[in-house]
């Protein structure tokens, strides 16, 4: 099939106007020795019906029917139908960057509301209009901290930060002289004494995650305090849904908050597109990467919305831009906006509370199973690390065979400490029921 609009007759008419005999003549612009001889070697085309059959068959080879207790940074939270309905409107998903504000007030206002909701959620003064996802958000925050502090010597990353986020920082900084230092986790949380030892006046920022990759609650306030004392910024990678019950990053002293926003109404879709959140205090705004939407007035004095502070961006500043990112994750920011609007304070509190209560029930019950115990003593939110007396992958497989997805096993993350190789993550969201938790426990007891 194809998507051609002009009929052969129209093609003829158009070529006449152009003054060509055929389309081949138009292709003369490409030197003939560079033109492809023959055809691309691609599979035969399919019609819509054939494609749908093909996809249905492939989809059946992915296993999504198990009860999901899987975590590691992407979660099976509930996505209300309204989110899909709004994000499914062509007016949003087939528009582009709002270069013409007069024809884009829908997106612009939605993104302004996104920024405002993220500010309300985090306590920060300002949020950008989104970044790619959590890992790049951490990197962008680290670069931003270097600009703010004018320090590019060191970045400290807690081992509690998602290992893939840390890998992204490693990649982004690979051509810089900046030293990226990992502060180990002890008993599942950032080792504060090690942090205090390492930190000095070359450190641009201290990055930690709350709750961290192991599910544990970090001593956030103390980490921020330590950073502040040394003139470094504190960057926290938070779980947005957890803010239904946990203190907001700005309220415990963080300078920059970043997040993977997938839990705010975004489907799992094998890892992306997701949503990178970045918010901070007012004073850093001109050092912020990414797009910003600003309130403005039109010629008649009517309130409206425009792309703001574009002088930070690469189409104006080119190699001096705050970042090379040139879009936001518009459709995902829209999903988060609709999600947060639907949830409101009470809905978010309930979703967070349910996730937390069910996770604790699951943790209690799972420890009844021989060979399973909580890897760490400290408090956790909706996810926890379970250590197993045998091979962690074998545990995941046993669960899978019984109809449950758990994990991932920690040993699959590069640089995972040896001590974590017997461990798996278990995440419990508001979508899980007591019956499902009990059934998982029973299955693992067998």
């Amino acid at each position, binding site marked *: 099939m194809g998507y051609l609009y002009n009929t052969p007759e129209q093609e003829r008419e158009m070529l006449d106007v152009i003054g060509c005999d055929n389309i081949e003549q138009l292709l003369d612009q490409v030197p003939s020795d560079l033109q492809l001889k023959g055809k691309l070697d691609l599979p035969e085309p399919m019609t819509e019906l054939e494609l749908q059959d093909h996809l249905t068959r492939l989809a059946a080879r992915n296993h999504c029917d198990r009860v999901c207790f899987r975590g590691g940074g992407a979660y099976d939270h509930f996505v209300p139908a*309204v989110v899909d309905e709004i994000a499914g409107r062509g007016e*949003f998903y087939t528009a582009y960057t709002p270069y013409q504000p007069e024809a884009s007030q829908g997106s612009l206002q939605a993104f302004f509301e996104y920024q405002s*909701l993220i500010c*309300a959620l985090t306590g920060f003064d300002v949020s950008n209009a989104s970044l790619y996802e959590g890992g790049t958000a951490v990197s962008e925050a680290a670069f931003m901290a270097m600009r703010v502090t004018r320090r590019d010597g060191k970045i400290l990353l807690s081992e509690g930060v998602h290992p893939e986020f840390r890998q992204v920082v490693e990649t982004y900084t690979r051509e810089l002289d900046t030293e990226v230092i990992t502060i180990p986790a002890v008993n599942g949380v950032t080792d504060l004494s090690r942090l205090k030892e390492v930190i000095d006046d070359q450190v641009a920022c201290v990055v930690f995650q709350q709750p961290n990759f192991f599910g544990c609650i970090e001593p956030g306030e103390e980490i921020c305090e330590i950073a502040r004392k040394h003139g470094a910024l504190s960057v926290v990678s938070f779980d947005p849904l957890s803010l239904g019950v946990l203190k907001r990053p700005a309220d415990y002293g963080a300078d920059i908050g970043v997040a993977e926003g997938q839990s705010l109404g975004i489907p799992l879709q*094998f890892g992306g597109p997701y949503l990178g959140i970045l918010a901070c205090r007012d004073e850093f705004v001109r050092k912020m990467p990414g797009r910003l939407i600003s309130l403005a*007035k039109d010629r008649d004095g009517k309130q409206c919305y425009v792309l703001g502070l574009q002088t930070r961006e690469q189409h104006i500043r080119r190699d001096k831009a705050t970042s090379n990112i040139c879009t936001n994750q518009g459709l995902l920011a829209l999903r988060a906006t609709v999600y947060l609007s639907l949830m*409101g304070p009470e809905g978010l509190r309930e979703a967070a509370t349910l996730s937390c209560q069910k996770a604790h029930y699951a943790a209690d019950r799972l420890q009844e199973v021989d060979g399973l115990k909580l890897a760490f003593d400290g408090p956790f939110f909706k996810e926890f690390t379970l250590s197993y007396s045998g091979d962690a992958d074998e545990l995941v497989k046993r669960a899978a065979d019984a109809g449950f997805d758990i994990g991932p096993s920690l040993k699959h993350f590069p640089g995972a400490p040896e001590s974590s190789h017997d461990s798996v993550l278990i995440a419990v969201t508001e979508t899980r029921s007591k019956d499902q938790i009990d059934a998982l426990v029973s299955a693992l007891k067998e």
Partner: protein
Amino acid sequence: LATAPIFELSKKGRRAATLPKCDVPTVELSDLLLEDVLATSPPPLPELSEGDVVRHFVNLSTLNMCVDTHFYPLGSCTMKYNPKRHERLARLHGIGDLHPYSRVEDSQGMLQILYELQEMLGEIAGLPAVSLQPAAGAQGELAALHVASAYFADRKESRTKVVFPSSAHGTNPASAALAGFECIQLPPSSNGLVDVEALKNAVDEQTAVFMVTNPNTLGLFEKDIAKISSILHDVGGLVYIDGANMNAILGITRPGDFGGDMMHYNVHKTFTGPHGAGGPGAGPIAVRSFLADYLPGPIVTKTEKDGQPYFELSVPPKSIGRMRSFFGNVGILLRGYFYLRTLGSDGLRKVSEHAILNANYLRTRLEELMPVPNADRCMHEFVASAKKLKDEKGITAMDIAKRLLDYGFHAPTVYFPLVVPEAMMIEPTETESKETLDAFFETFKQIISEESERLHEAPESTSIRRPDEVSAARNPVLSWTACVKD
């Protein structure tokens, strides 16, 4: 009312979402979590009813122009029709709800799709090694520049410079700077193409990469691209093809065949991933075999198991590392996969042929009204100049752009590329008909016949008139709280 800021629609005590009662024994949260990490109250989000949320966002949506409602010839952005079947298929159970840490044995369908996509993108590029990881074109650029760095480092070569023409997209220098390179911009040329002599002078053994968009941002094919590539290769540098304009050359010529060593795709442009009002995109990169080991990962590899094809994830041996968490922007990659599978090689070539046909037709007609500098043919887009109109009648490119909105057309890209004064960059795409192009031409003609005073005041019929962007930049108000404070 419905389009008032959402915080203004809030009323204390209203609820949209309701959650189930807790079915497990509950414990005081302060017993589960330390008191000092708990918030004393939930965040001050607005409180709304479900119907008000729907009405608000549906009404907001109607304030946008989009491809589904309007011709949207925004140059360089390839605003083509986004097939609805892709939206349906991307949501399929087993596709839309697959966890990124699904075990390899539980994801064979998805991995097969992604593997086939790697293969197809490699074939279209003529560059066999592909990483699907980058989240957008700009991240693809950055990834490729890191690949180049890693390659040179491996060869113990110290190369610090990235060169690009003055018509380059702003992301090129921004990515190069972020990757730690020094940026060298070539002076503007007289014919809109890379000045081969200037390039020769600009490159040396310090040059790592020459970044070039081909066709370039003027819609012209860099006819000397083979020579350009040789110049780079002669000094040991690499040629990077910015794939933003791939819609012009699908199945006609391949970056790998004309000398490119690395490139990125914009799946949301060329392969119909919808633009989402600014994102998400996907920016997979394709490189020559000798660069394959440096690609960011994971990538999908094909093996065999029990005599059947079996797909696995692997990280190239000298990988630069991850560009992002998880696999990539799979949702967008899928749409590219659907597109390629429905078009096949003939269909794909037709896409570019008709993109070129449409652009040349519109170019030829519009040239009656406005000069289109630099050549009498274009590829998939062209850049007209309103300079003469400005000089003679005081009508700017911006005026025309704004007035087009009144007539139900989205505006072209204006004032880019910087090398053309009063630039209007027009890319009709292949998914528009002659009828639409003719209507656009007639409107254009009508507009330039109007009083310039009226054009300065345009648009008249949109939900807002021209915003005061200067004072917004001076005094940005970036959130509701800030706005209420004011």
